[in-house]
């Protein structure tokens, strides 16, 4: 009986405490949400995306504050899981003050979640999703500022073909939309480059890779390409090297986190990876960002943090343009204005979105891991870098070239 009374009291106290929170809603509040994995094996990247968005709001919301608005940041944890991402999306579209979402980290989460944003006209700017389906669906609210997996996979294969002694490759993927997608593009491009693809395997294993490694040892490829995220691919190479694999190792931007060095240890040194986001130190304009980020959060920013900062900046700039023009601030207006972004000068580059929401020009880099020390991750060597146009821009250019000659 006494227990029941305690529960009752507790409920009353909780209700009493939550009343002021509900009452504090201000009409002039603009909220920006982020969705990224804040818990679980990929939380290092996800937390960095969250932190950078928070920093951007702190530093770049000045003009909006002067106009009498307060900008609030609402981070969500999508746990790198599609159903959690969608559940969060359904939750956050109900908050009318949320004007845009920064996220996600994982394409497999972003694709279903963005359907929910699209149904509610909520703009999404992604700092990290590279799967082609993100923008190829042509959703008006979905944008990204990073490159695409078709170009990334092909760039990886082209680079692999130039490496000395590489004739055979073995391709692994993590069976997610992202990993399988990029691995498939790598596989196709590798075959076109004249490399022999010895195998194309998906695995959801996260701890014990012995079963995956056995056939690889027997086939003895010159290079393994693993389309997956560091929490899986770092452990894999550690075990593969211990089992006697001596060839090269390569992967997509999912490798790009300092945790990879920790998980892979010595086995990860000299690993190649392609990325759509070079280390923050690679961008000259990001020096101040790195300093501020490190001062605020006590650790250096991970890859995609600078992109998250720019994504947030693009949203804030779009909202500012709407308010200055005197239009009503609605989600639809924000989505349209974000898409109309032209030559936004961010710390990682200058961004203009094409009609699908891809950046017209995206940076691609090929890097090599230099050390097993996670603190050295940002000094990984950039072996090659290039700018590539989005498919829509490339098609338009091809047409423009074809017209005068015909």
């Amino acid at each position, binding site marked *: 009986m006494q227990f029941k009374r305690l529960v009752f009291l507790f409920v009353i106290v909780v209700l009493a405490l939550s009343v002021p929170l509900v009452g504090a809603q201000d009409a002039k509040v603009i909220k920006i949400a982020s969705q990224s994995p804040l*818990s*679980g*094996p990929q*939380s*290092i990247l996800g937390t960095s995306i969250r932190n950078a968005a928070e920093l951007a709001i702190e530093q770049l919301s000045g003009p909006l504050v002067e106009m009498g608005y307060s900008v609030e940041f609402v981070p969500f944890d999508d746990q790198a899981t599609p159903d959690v991402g969608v559940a969060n999306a359904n939750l956050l579209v109900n908050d009318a003050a949320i004007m845009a979402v920064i996220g996600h980290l994982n394409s497999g989460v972003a694709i279903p979640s963005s359907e929910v944003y699209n149904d509610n006209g909520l703009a999404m700017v992604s700092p990290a999703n590279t799967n082609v389906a993100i923008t190829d669906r042509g959703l008006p609210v979905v944008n990204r500022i990073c490159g695409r997996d078709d170009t990334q996979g092909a760039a990886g294969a082209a680079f692999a073909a130039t490496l000395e002694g590489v004739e055979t490759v073995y391709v692994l993927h993590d*069976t997610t939309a992202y990993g399988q997608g990029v691995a498939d593009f790598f596989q196709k491009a590798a075959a076109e480059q004249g490399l022999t693809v010895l*195998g*194309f*395997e*998906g*695995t959801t*294993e*996260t*701890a*014990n*890779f*012995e*079963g*995956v*490694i*056995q*056939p690889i*040892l*027997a*086939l003895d490829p010159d290079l393994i390409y693993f389309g997956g995220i560091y*929490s899986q691919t*770092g*452990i894999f190479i*550690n*075990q593969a090297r*211990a*089992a*006697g694999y001596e060839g090269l190792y390569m992967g997509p931007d999912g490798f790009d986190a300092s*945790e990879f060095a*920790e*998980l892979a*240890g*010595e086995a990860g040194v000299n690993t190649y990876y392609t990325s759509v986001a070079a280390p923050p130190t690679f961008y000259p304009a990001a020096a101040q960002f790195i300093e501020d980020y490190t001062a605020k959060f006590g650790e250096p920013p991970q890859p995609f943090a600078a992109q998250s900062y720019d994504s947030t900046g693009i949203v804030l700039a779009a909202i500012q343009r709407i308010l200055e023009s005197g239009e009503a601030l609605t989600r639809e207006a924000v989505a349209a204005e974000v898409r109309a972004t032209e030559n936004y000068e961010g710390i990682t580059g200058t961004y203009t979105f094409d009609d699908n929401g891809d950046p017209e020009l995206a940076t691609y880099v090929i890097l090599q891991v230099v050390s*097993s020390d996670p603190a050295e991750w940002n000094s990984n060597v950039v072996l090659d870098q290039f700018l590539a146009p989005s498919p829509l821009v490339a098609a338009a250019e091809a047409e423009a070239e074809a017209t005068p000659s015909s």
Partner: protein
Amino acid sequence: MLDARRSLGSVSSRSILEWGYRFILFPIGQMLIFIVGAALFLTVLAFLLALAFPEPRPNIVLIDQVNRQLPGMIISGITIGFVYAMIALGYTLVYGVLKFINFAHSEIFMVGSVVGFEVMQRLSDTGHLPAWSPVFLVVVVILMAMLASGLLAVIIERVAYRPLRGAPRLVPLISAIGISFFMIDLVRAVEAITRNDFNLTYPLNQLEWVRSPFKLVIGENTINIRPTQFIVVLGAVVTLIALNYFVNGTKLGRGIRAVSQDMTTAGLMGINVNRMISLTFFVGGAFGGAAGALFGMNVGTVTPFVGFIPGIKAFTAAVLGGIGNVTGALLGGLTLGLVESFLNGLLVYFPALGQRYTDVFAFSVLILILIFRPSGLLGERVDEKV
């Protein structure tokens, strides 16, 4: 009755030779027969497969691949098989006594692997790690994991199962699933607060001996046997022999067996049933913990979610061998480990299938065996308690 008990309990009345045979030679022989039998059977199947599909993919001659992979597949199958067997023992012991499946056992395994990490990491943080001798280090890590997991299992039983002992069968099952989630998030919270890290990597790279594999040369092939694989097998064999002695050769073990046969009558005979049940949980949990530490040392990185897959597989192994039967758990674990390893190694060459189908085939085997032997490979028909 009294005389019989005295003669069973005292070692001095038997010759040392007979004791050695019963508690050391016989179990080792049994394990060897299981391993060799299962490996031979699967090898024959692999060669038959190679005859049926000589070239499943262009430029891949299956028989060459089988030849090249055979030793590796057998070694990795035995390694993971022993891990499954050790976890399966926890399921089977508890089932034997309480006739219910302790679904929180996969988390007891996970806690063992995390405790193993913590011990090593603490040593590494204080700089003592490289100085410790390999044998001493491994023994300490395993013992600490066993102690932690054993105590945890006892606490779980006391808190979550004992109050529900008279309740319908489904109630403790739900309670077990609840405990399972609770343990995952508790470990996650503790590690997040103390280490701010999710992936827990054993500091093995500081140990020179871990990085130097034994080279086994068979014909043209060199097989790397990692020291950790060796430790898994050796550790499993030693602990399994100890368990066999404990259950079949000591007074406490006899108490556990009596309770598992008939709890009420055992109680009437003066056996403290609750204490025996706690003891069963301790022993089963300790095995799960040892398996966790061995698994962690072998794979290098563990997370709070690491228990789920091995836990499910080990439960399968326990059912396959005949749940409630200790030898069956060993046979089931080794069989499942080897079948899985062979499937992983060979499905790659069939473009339409691939390793994704390993579990489909492994569990099809399980269903087939259970159709023909519903109580498992070594299980006896037990009347269901209602």
